[in-house]
């Protein structure tokens, strides 16, 4: 069951819509550039297949709840991240419109939870490096399971964050997390096994279907970077809302030893910005700048050294 409109506020819903829209536009651009004729019918039929697969609920023992497959990792392995993301977006759109599974406002949230994490994070960063050339079966199973589990953990985490930020379902964050993450661990395991089984079957029956793009050729990291940047901004902006008011380790130690807590800064800017979302966002931007500059400098130095 995907997130319903009843669970999100317009602020969260629209924000996630914006993120999903950016990624959709970027993926569409990428697909148009590829212009692979084979991908179009494949996206349609795999979308239908995963759609049907998502209707199968398997019960998770000992919890009294059930889970269903996501299919993001499988789609990414067969269509590439951009194609898989568009396919997941279309599946969620059809489910929201026709089967009332997942709301219109919550579509953006669902696309990020079920599409972004498996297609742009789990597949390129975990599955592809682990699976290598793709001829070794144990590696395929290992890569599928790990990538699926990580993808689902991240997805479940974003569901909790979106629900908590909306505040309609008054579930306290920590118990909700403790409930969601283990269940999605089990679901991720099943998803990984199912993905590996299907990929193994296709490797035997129709090897030409499996993506042949070698590591690093023509594969653009930009959607991943954009998505990670947005994610970092969101986390930086919002984590201050959940920050505990209790003293941290250092402040507690200071209080015990010196009788007073952390030193108080009296500067005006610090008072304006401290502890708020602005601080988080400024922090992310600063880190992005610094890391980006450092990375560029390193690359330039390396290139200079290589040509010298």
């Amino acid at each position, binding site marked *: 069951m995907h997130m319903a409109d009843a669970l999100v506020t317009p602020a969260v819903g629209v924000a996630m819509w914006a993120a999903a829209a950016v990624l959709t536009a970027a993926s569409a651009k990428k697909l148009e550039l590829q212009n692979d004729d084979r991908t179009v019918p494949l996206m349609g039929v795999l979308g239908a297949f995963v759609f*049907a697969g998502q209707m199968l609920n398997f019960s998770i023992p000992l919890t009294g709840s059930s889970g269903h497959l996501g299919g993001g990792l499988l789609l990414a392995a067969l269509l590439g991240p951009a194609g898989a993301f568009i396919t997941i977006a279309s599946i969620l759109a*059809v489910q929201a419109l026709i089967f009332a599974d997942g709301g*219109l406002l919550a579509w953006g949230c669902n696309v990020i939870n079920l599409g972004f994490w498996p297609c742009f994070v789990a597949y390129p960063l975990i599955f592809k490096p682990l699976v290598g050339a793709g001829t070794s079966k144990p590696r395929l199973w290992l890569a599928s399971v790990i990538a699926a589990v990580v993808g689902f953990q991240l997805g479940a985490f974003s569901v909790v964050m979106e629900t908590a930020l909306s505040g309609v379902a008054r579930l306290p964050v920590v118990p909700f997390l403790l409930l969601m993450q283990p269940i999605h661990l089990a679901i991720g395991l099943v998803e990984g096994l199912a993905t590996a089984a299907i990929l193994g079957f296709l490797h035997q029956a129709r090897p030409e279907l499996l993506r042949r793009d070698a590591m690093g050729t023509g594969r653009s990291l930009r959607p991943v970077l954009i998505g990670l940047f947005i994610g970092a901004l969101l986390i930086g902006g919002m984590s201050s809302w959940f920050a505990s008011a209790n003293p941290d380790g250092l402040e507690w130690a200071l209080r015990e030893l010196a009788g007073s807590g952390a030193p108080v800064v009296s500067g005006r800017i610090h008072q304006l910005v401290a502890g708020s979302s602005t601080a988080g966002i400024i922090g992310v931007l600063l880190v992005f700048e610094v890391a980006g500059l450092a990375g560029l400098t390193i690359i330039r130095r390396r290139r200079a050294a290589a040509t010298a």
Partner: protein
Amino acid sequence: MFNPAAALAELGALDRLAAGDTAVHRYDPRAKLAVTLAFVIAVASFPPTAFAGLVPFALFPLVMAIAGGVPGRYLWSRILWVLPFALLLGIANPWLDRVPVVTVGGLAVTGGWLSLGSIILRVILTVSAALVLLATTGIHPLCRALNALGCPRVLTVQVLLLYRYLFVLVEQSARIRMARGLRLGQRPTLAEAGTLLGQLLLRAIDRAGRIHLAMRSRGFDGTFRLARELRWIRRDTLFLCSWLVIFIFLRAIDWSRLGGGIS
């Protein structure tokens, strides 16, 4: 489990309803889409414990369903199907939030119960709005409307292809089921189910490839053309503006003053 016949009937029902020709069907799909999105945003913008304020919003799906010829039984069956999941997530609210907010006839109602009721109401409202939209618009015009509002063509073509291939897939699976049932009779084991699923996937991929080739050789270039071109007329502006005004009005009224205390 996946029931091909029921799924096919479900998809077909919506197609048939969308092919109707009532006054609602004739409005521009862009107007209907915009109004539905505004409706969903208005409903979602209520605070978590709002209940009475949400009830008047039922006007929109009711009017559209009645004027658009959408059978109430169909709407209800879809809503009932979705309600248990909404209940599941809101069911903890009465235990988590026990602060009494309002008194109704001597009984103190806590914020938790109000927010649970609010969640249920929101689900009913948003689900019926989405279903009525599709039942009075049809997926082709709706995708055209999405394109007009800026949705990338790749996504809408994919939605349309997905929609059509669902029928292909269901047909294939029904055929495989029947063939197997005629030969063996009893239910398949897990290993058999896996092989059957693999066969289904391969057949569906092949069939989809052939269909796509056929479409290409008939000149398909990624754009779906409608029998009726989209034309925005004054009636559509009236439709859009009147519903927007109604939503803003209903949202802005402070119902707690009028309703005697239930917010």
